[in-house]
């Protein structure tokens, strides 16, 4: 099992099971924050965007893809950052409003 695709597939399937277990315990009351928080997490793709935008030019001998990679990576970073920063911020704003009777 040295094929990276197979290893990735294992990771993916197991993570799906973990996700289903953990998230099915989230109560209805928190479903909107769950969605916006999960949304922020899906911005993890920023990690990929960083790699694409900042990669070494001479790793690609004779490649003309470099400029394009930088431009695409830059666009991806902006979109992913909006998703991450905005998502976590608005989730925090929402969760701050959830109070018990005694805390008021």
């Amino acid at each position: 099992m040295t094929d990276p695709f197979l290893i990735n597939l294992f990771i993916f399937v197991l993570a799906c099971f973990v996700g289903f277990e953990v998230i099915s315990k989230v109560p209805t009351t928190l479903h909107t924050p769950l969605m916006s928080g999960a949304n922020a997490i899906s911005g993890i793709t920023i990690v990929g965007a960083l790699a694409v935008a900042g990669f070494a030019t001479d790793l690609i001998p004779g490649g003309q893809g470099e400029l394009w990679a930088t431009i695409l990576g830059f666009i991806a970073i902006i979109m992913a950052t909006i998703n991450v920063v905005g998502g976590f911020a608005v989730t925090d704003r929402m969760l701050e409003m959830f109070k018990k009777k005694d805390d008021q």
Partner: protein
Amino acid sequence: MNSNPLVPEMLAEYVPVITEILYLIAISMFILGLKRLSSPATARSGNKMAAWAMLIGIVVTLFDQGIVSFEWIIAGIVIGSAIGIALAKKVEMTAMPELVAIFNGFGGGASAVVAGGEYMRLSGVVGTGDSITMAIGVLIGAVTFTGSFIAFGKLKGFVSGSPVMFPGIRVLTVGLFLVVLVEAVMFAMNSGDWLPLVVLAVVALILGILLVIPIGGADMPVVISLLNSYSGLAASAAGFVLNNSLLIVAGALVGASGLILTNIMCVAMNRSLFNVLFGAFGAGESAGPGSTEATGDKTVREAQADDVAVMTAYAQRVIIVPGYGLAVAQAQHACREVGDMLEEKGVDVRYGIHPVAGRMPGHMNVLLAEANVPYDKLFDMEEINSEFSKTDVVLIIGANDVVNPDARENESSPIYGMPILNVDEAKTTVVFKRSLNPGFAGIDNTLFYKENNYMFFGDAKKSLTELISAIKTL
């Protein structure tokens, strides 16, 4: 040979191992953070934990040996953060579905670009397996991108809320799917050629529009949940392309979350996912508001603020059932005030919330939390349904179809089988409503004509304000 300016040369060889270990820590923190969302008391810290995990993931990646230029990275992060924070700070809670749709779109778009950009970076030197994952990444990401913005437009009213159909849309959609398949195969076969990937991306963008535009505005909660799931899967696909476990796991968690919410919304609306997505493709919306039956001999009992004040203030248990109409009338605060006043008089006040009360899963809970209703007063349908028979008065404010007994009793009703709040089991019900007009779905509500039901006509906010002053004078 360039190398990452952040890492001293002698340490460079340890970076990959340390990176993987820190990724593992970040993954664990994502999972623990989501786990903390299982209670409102710990949820805020859970969200913070996930945010920290994200920061770890980003910082660790910056030490990657391949990254040598930081100008574009810094510029991108600064611009993105400014936009993200501005959106998060100024959004109204009623507009949460729109905001989530936008964020979904950006996340999906970013994943598509990452999968495509990786191809550019490798200058076309990709194996068959990699090119398939790239094609999948671009497809899901691009569909999420345009689909989310159409959903946003429908919620905002820029795009028609009713299902948009034109002749041949079905053939076109299927045809474009085939094009995607063909392009993906072509891309995988001659991995040096970039044209098929570009065509695939463009066609996928069009598909995103075609898939969402025929879906009615009322079904947008399902669509947003599903697109949420897609944005996670797109991130996972990008992770496959980059061989990055952090992306794969985080994306899978989001994918699972979105699917669970999609399912909950479908069950609550008594629809199958297939029916929501492709319902308009079938018979073509036969409903319309024409189904007004002969309401001739049916009578309704009307109540004024004073009557409702007496009913509720001297009751033992009151349940408030809010619907989206409450939020439209901006009456959440007045509603909470009524609840507080009744509690001061010793009445047991609770809120019963139907899963589709808002415009996205859990939306109504957020709207009430914003009005300072304590979350331990909010009960979902399963918890509260057995309580109605022991309740003196139920106040139904801005809700209609979700309390219609026909869904339980009348097999010929279009909403038959939809799970509802059994408010008719209570001793008395009071419906706050502008008029007797049938609701959103154009279905007559038999609750209005029951003997123990009273109609309190008027705008929800105005009626609640009247009720507040009436209770004060008691």
